[in-house]
């Protein structure tokens, strides 16, 4: 299959506000794709549409050749932007859940990974730090042999060492037939691991290109480019040379 993910004229509206406007997108296999944009630019909305958690207002989404549903969910491994498990559960409960739910789940691998992270099966989620929760969830999600991985903010709110661990996990579990979509606004950290980037601005795709093409063409890092594209002009447009100077 050439196109794992395809969106055509995709719109999503919440009330009067468009969260996504006329999005056209096509992603092939073997790519690590960065979905980049400031807060509120539609990153999570797009990922939720691909997961079938939201329905499009108009336009079409195809995941693995079908509209999001039972078939597509079997091939999509999704990391939500927040913990969705009850906090009285222990790590072992989550492994049982994943093993029950997903045929492609590799139990041995996740147990190994948790052991190397120092997470024990009887550890309760309630007692875990934010970073440990993130790492546990990512380990579970990456231990599926899926065709598409949708990772919503996998590195937000964790320390730099944990970030390295998470990116390393993504790279080491990289599979040439699969596609990984990572949404984030921490670009400097992920830039090196990405093949392609998609810039979302106010619900529209303003740029979709490979990292090296962008670097070659613009002569600067994607992080610098992002800061330029999304620079807030001034908090106090009436006066002052610096954004913090009032009239």
């Amino acid at each position: 299959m050439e196109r794992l993910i395809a969106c055509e004229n995709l719109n999503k509206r919440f009330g009067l506000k468009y969260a996504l406007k006329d999005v056209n997108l096509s992603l092939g296999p073997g790519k690590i794709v960065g979905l980049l944009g400031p807060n509120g630019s539609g990153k999570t909305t797009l990922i939720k549409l691909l997961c079938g958690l939201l329905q499009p207002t108009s336009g079409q989404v195809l995941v693995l050749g079908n509209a999001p549903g039972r078939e597509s969910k079997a091939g999509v491994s999704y990391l939500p932007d927040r913990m969705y498990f009850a906090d009285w559960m222990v790590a072992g409960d989550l492994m049982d859940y994943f093993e029950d739910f997903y045929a492609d789940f590799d139990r041995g691998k996740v147990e190994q990974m948790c052991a190397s992270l120092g997470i024990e099966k009887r550890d309760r989620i309630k007692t875990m730090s934010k970073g440990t929760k993130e790492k546990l969830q990512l380990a579970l999600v990456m231990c599926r042999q899926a065709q598409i991985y949708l990772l919503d903010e996998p590195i937000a709110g964790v320390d730099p060492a944990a970030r390295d661990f998470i990116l390393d996990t993504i790279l080491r579990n990289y599979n040439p037939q699969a596609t990984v979509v990572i949404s984030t606004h921490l670009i400097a950290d992920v830039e090196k691991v990405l093949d392609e980037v998609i810039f979302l601005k106010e619900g529209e795709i303003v740029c979709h290109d490979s990292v090296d093409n962008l670097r070659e063409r613009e002569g600067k890092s994607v992080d610098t480019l992002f800061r330029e594209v999304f620079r807030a002009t001034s908090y106090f447009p009436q006066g002052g040379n610096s954004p913090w100077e009032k009239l």
Partner: protein
Amino acid sequence: MEWKIDGQGPIWLQLYAALTRRILAGEYPAGTRLPSVRELAAEAGVNPNTMQRALAYLEEQGLAVGNGTQGRVVTDDQQLLASARRTQALALLQETRTALVELGFTAQEAKELWKEGESTWND
């Protein structure tokens, strides 16, 4: 040797430069096998496709030789290694000169500085 990746230019070219430095410094000795794409990518913390591109270019330049399914081997063509080492050295000298000129020295003064520096080098 560290993998240094900065904001200047494509990542694959920087990886290619780092690999070349490692070969010339003898970290990957002539005639030995290079680590696999995946290993190198994980070590440098970069995308495997990007590392693949850097290695393909290394092969194109003759510094590595593809060995089918056996991975890649560092060339043992001493002539080629010597000329690559020379190219690298000339580039370093050029860089130093540019930096000195930026500091406000003329080319002539730079040459004199070089001589002055020479006397302080003790092998």
